[in-house]
């Protein structure tokens, strides 16, 4: 026990904040990620994290709170992606790519202007990798609140979302506003992903959004079970990652700790690969409907 949990682990303030924020992000991302994977919007999920950080650097430049910067950028990008995206999946990917390209260009400009003003070069690094150990306590309430908002939105919409995700044509025939549902869903995704990206970095936010959900969808039978499994997987990976990162302060080569994102990503990958090992034994005879419950089209 002593080898896994270093003495002083739970007494440290940053570690407690990290565990709390990690749990909020992991659970929110785990649940929302299930819909993201079902709807085939992994790319959008990752892009929104990148776009939000553009908004963050822009807000820094204008001098308003970063929180507003990434919220506005994330939601605007979500509306743009769904707005100009054609209903076909490939067209939607291209629309996402164009919005992301423009946002990355803007990020280049903002970061350049930031460096002109403040002569710091670490901005781009923080944007990508972030750090869960240096979250300022002021952002914690905002993170929890946004996680709850996103979760409630998805919970209220859950049935309609599943319906429009699995058979958009049928949903449209029943009078569901598929596009409106899509935009609301993407806005919820933008809120959760962008806050996660700013707190723990775009890499980790994407890993927690896609990895656990994809793993859960490969093993779980129903969407609700998949959501629970996904949230638990994400939570386990995050907490174990944080503990390992804390332990790694004693590891070679330089004794200043290995990054959390590395451990969490590695754990998420292991989980996903394990789900591959399990699948064939359960479903030896390939039925024509195989995979139909998880992925449409």
């Amino acid at each position: 026990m002593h080898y896994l949990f270093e003495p002083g682990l739970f007494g440290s303030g940053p570690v407690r904040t990290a565990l709390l924020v990690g749990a909020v992000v992991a659970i929110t991302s785990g649940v929302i990620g299930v819909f993201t994977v079902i709807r085939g919007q992994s790319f959008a999920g990752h892009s929104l994290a990148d776009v939000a950080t553009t908004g963050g650097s822009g807000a820094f430049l204008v001098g308003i709170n970063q929180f507003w910067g990434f919220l506005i950028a994330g939601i605007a990008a979500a509306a743009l992606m769904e707005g100009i995206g054609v209903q076909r999946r490939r067209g939607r990917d291209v629309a996402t790519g164009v919005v992301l390209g423009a946002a990355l260009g803007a990020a280049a400009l903002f970061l350049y202007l930031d460096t002109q003003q403040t002569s710091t070069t670490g901005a781009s690094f923080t944007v990508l990798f972030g750090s869960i150990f240096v979250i300022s306590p002021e952002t914690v309430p905002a993170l929890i609140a946004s996680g709850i908002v996103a979760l409630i939105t998805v919970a209220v919409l859950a049935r309609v979302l599943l319906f429009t995700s699995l058979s958009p044509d049928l949903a449209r025939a029943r009078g569901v506003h598929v596009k409106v549902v899509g935009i609301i869903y993407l806005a919820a995704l933008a809120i959760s992903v962008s806050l996660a990206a700013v707190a723990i970095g775009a890499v980790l936010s994407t890993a927690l959004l896609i990895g656990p959900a994809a793993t859960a969808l490969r093993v779980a039978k129903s969407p609700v079970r998949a959501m629970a499994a996904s949230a638990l997987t994400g939570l386990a990976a995050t907490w174990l990652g944080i503990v390992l990162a804390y332990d790694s302060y004693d590891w070679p080569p330089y004794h200043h700790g290995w990054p959390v994102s590395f451990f969490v990503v590695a754990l998420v990958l292991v989980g996903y690969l394990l789900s591959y090992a399990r699948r064939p034994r359960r479903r030896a005879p390939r039925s024509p409907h195989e995979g139909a419950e998880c992925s449409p089209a």
Partner: protein
Amino acid sequence: MFTGLMLNTWITASIVAVIAGMTGFFAVLRGQTFAAHAIPNGAFAGAAGASLLGINVIWGLAVFAVGGALGIGALGSEQRGRKSRNDVVTALALVVMLGLGALFVSISSQYAEETYALLFGEVFGISQGEVLPIAGLGIVAAVAIGVAFRPLMLTSALPEVAAARGLSTRRADLYFLVVMALATSMTVPVVGALLMFSLMIGPAAAARSVTARPGVALALSVAIALATVWFSIALSYRTNWPLGFFVGVAGAVFYLLGQAARGLGASRARPAQ
């Protein structure tokens, strides 16, 4: 604007634009936009690893780009319809590479200055020695795509026909991803991981929305990429703002123009029916 080092910039950027216009056309056509984002970005982490080991950055970029491409190709699904799984695999490949990048960066801990250049490019200040490898790679990439032009087109546009002729969509995917990875590994140090993506997707998407004919669209994609780059270099030279900004915005503007042109064309065609 056209002397000495700037001449190298113009030549290099033009070569990069041609490569990006060609690979981007197929990336958009094959629905591999996400891979086009993930491979350059993930390769960027390889550069961090190379500088940690003290070897040439190109090797790190090449290993990570090709490794990522092979990973996406190997775990991805053969069936076109299972796109969500391909997306998941791409996302995981990206975060695994970037997670390793975070590890490399934290160990070497002196990398932040180079990070900006690799993300956003260092197009001004290219030496004569750097132009030649890029030109060589440009030819290799162009030949690789030219040789496989028909199989690539067929597996993208008519997968059933391709399957009937014994062409494997999956093998074509893998081939194309590796070509894209090789193109990326040479261009990232010059134009940056983010810029390479903007330059691949914007012009190709714009070209595709104007014309449905593949040959014309490919040529148009290359032409728009060249226009984007030239326009951006000129503006970046005048304003001193980063090149990536102009490329990103120009890509979006061209795409919107293309969409508007298509909308106009459609509304003009309708009364004639």
